[in-house]
């Protein structure tokens, strides 16, 4: 092949540029710390990275839901425990009241105490989380339990509904979160009111009968507490798995998008050597021609 001087110069430019371009690409990977800087760097990898990004975003959202649900359940459990505490105290008063030796005044005093405890129980049941009543069913803006007192008798009415609060805990899975107040609590409050009424009435036998009603109502309350505990456990499990998932997703995303520094450094050094070699070759090639020997 005939070799012209222009050809040598052009080849030199082309090769040096080429080596330089490759070097800059390796440098870009190293300095940005990413092997995918634009979708065109690796379209398939970009597709996977985008899916992982969505899953990460969803994971964050589901984690927020789980944390929120956890707090909701905490408030619910505290509320149910509070009601349970007052129920136990009222039962103790009922046991005292069932003693036939008490005077009417003493029973009235007990009835007043029961009335105060009912108010206390209602206050516990009307707990709110983030401005929402946790025991109103879906009527979260309506106070669930209201009391009316007439003639020393305290009665409690439920204002909420029986529809449970639901949350999407994991993709596509909508679960019941929270216990509607219609579940177990009206029976508890009505047993309390009944005891108060019978204490005022003074019939020991009826008071003893009320104790049985209270025990039955407490059984229902215990059931509600148990299911609240089960929901809390489920939410805790979801939180744990979301956290694991987050770690895995982050690692996967990083594996696709981020540069492997060891590999990137090796590539960079290889290309640097190539570039330096091409510069050396370009500098040395054809420094003289036959013209130099013409005399």
């Amino acid at each position, binding site marked *: 092949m005939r070799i*012209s001087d222009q*050809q040598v110069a052009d080849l030199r430019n082309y090769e040096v540029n080429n080596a330089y371009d490759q070097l800059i690409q390796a440098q870009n990977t190293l300095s940005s710390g990413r092997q995918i800087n634009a979708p065109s760097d690796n379209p398939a990898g970009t597709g996977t990275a985008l899916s992982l990004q969505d899953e990460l975003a969803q994971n964050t959202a589901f984690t927020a839901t789980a944390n929120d649900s956890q707090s909701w359940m905490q408030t619910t459990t505290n509320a149910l425990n509070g009601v349970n505490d007052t129920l136990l105290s009222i039962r103790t008063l009922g046991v005292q009241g069932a003693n036939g030796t008490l005077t009417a005044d003493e029973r009235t005093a007990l009835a007043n105490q029961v009335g105060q405890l009912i108010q206390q129980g209602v206050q516990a049941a009307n707990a709110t989380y*983030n401005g929402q009543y946790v025991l109103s069913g879906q009527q*979260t803006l309506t106070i669930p339990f209201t009391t009316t007192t007439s003639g020393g008798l305290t009665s409690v009415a439920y204002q909420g509904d029986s529809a449970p609060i639901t949350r*999407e805990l994991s993709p596509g899975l909508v679960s019941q979160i929270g216990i509607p107040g219609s579940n177990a609590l009206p029976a508890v409050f009505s047993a309390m009111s009944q005891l108060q009424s019978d204490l005022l009435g003074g019939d020991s036998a009826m008071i003893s009968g009320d104790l049985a009603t209270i025990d039955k109502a407490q059984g229902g309350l215990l059931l509600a507490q148990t299911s609240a505990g089960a929901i809390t456990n489920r939410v805790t499990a979801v939180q744990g798995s979301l956290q694991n998932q987050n770690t895995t997703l982050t690692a996967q995303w990083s594996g696709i998008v981020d540069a492997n520094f060891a590999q990137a450094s090796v590539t960079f050094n290889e290309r640097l050597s190539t570039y330096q070699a091409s510069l050396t070759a370009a500098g040395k090639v054809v420094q003289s021609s036959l013209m130099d020997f013409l005399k």
Partner: protein
Amino acid sequence: MTATFSGVNTALRGLEAEQIAMNVSGQNTANASTPGYSRQMVDLQTTDPISDPALGAAGPGQMGTGVQVASITRAHDSFVQQQVIYQNGQQSQLQTQSDTLANISQIFNEPNSTAGFGTLLSNFFTAWQGLANNPTDPSQQAVVAQRGADLAGGLNGASGSLQKMQEQNNAEIGGFVTQINTLTGQIATLNQQIAEVTAVGQQPNDLKDKQDNLVNQLSQVVGVQATYQANGTVNVSLAGSGTLVQGIQSHQLTTVPDAVQPQFTAVAFQGQPGQISVNGGSLGGAITARDQTLGGQLTTLNTLAANIASAVNNLQSTGYGSNGATGINFFVGTSAATLALNPVIAADNTNIAASSAPNEPGDGSLATKISQLQETPAGQPTTLQDQYNAMITQLGVNGQQAQTNLTTGTLVLQQLTNQQESVSSVSLNEEASNLMRYQQAYDAATHVMSIMDQTISDMINQLGG
């Protein structure tokens, strides 16, 4: 019998021919780095011998009369030149294509888990999940409204950037047309000069180099086909769209409003009705980028925007806001450019429907359904998120392909240039070698003349004396 002084003449012709040959070498050496210069070669031929029929019978045969320069030709491979013209057109278009795709990629800034365009979409759906947890919380309602406005604003911005790029490409068209007209005018003028030179039997070497340069420049601006005529002139045509240069006549192009998209410019022949389709070169690249690359991207983005709006609105309009309002759309507008948060919602966030039934403040099931739209196809073949991901992946595939094509094209062009330079460019070694040869021949011819002179002077002086 030959004339006494014919030998002197023969030697003189040798001197003259070698002198011309050395001049040509000088010209080649001087232009060793002139772009587009084709090295020239002297074509030496023997002059006509003496062949008088009357003398022929007596003599030993035909007697030579020396040398002459028959022609000075340029070293040129017209086949490679045709390929270069084609490849130039491809290359400029590929460059524009690759640049455009890289610019589009920058709009979306993917993959990026914190600042990519996709986060606008996932933030929007995440906000709905937050609202589902606290359906009556004014701050969650405000977040949903804000994320909705952000998403709409992001789509407006992306659409605006794409349109801006379309306008930039469009604005270049006029300049390219002017460039084409200037070049075709110059080629036509050059054709005339070349025809005049070849008409008197000479080789218009330098003019032909100039012609090649102009056609090369033209082929970078627009894809053309060149047909070389026997008299050295070139006819240039747009592939399938008409003739730009025919002999000494050049046909000027002009810009007209595009028939389909009147806001854009199209190309037409001056004085002829109808626009023409143009391929290749920077001009073809600008038009392809504007109509296909950017236009296609806008269509995809508009479809995505319309799908987001319809999917969200279909659910939203069936639900109930915390103020009891129902039948209100979340988004207004149906394209990426016009999508916006419904002003009714922007004015009062409690209009955002999170509940499937009225008067159930704790019911966030509708908000949950909307947040699920991200991953659940709603009356559409794929999910909204998949539609976005597919758009970005396609952009990556196209970008990668354009880069590969560009790299391949650069390599092809480099090889063609290499071939062309191998044939046409000056080699100083070769010129030095030629110069030595011509110099030696010139020296020898002077010796021959000197001996002739000696011989004749001997004859005149000694015989005459």
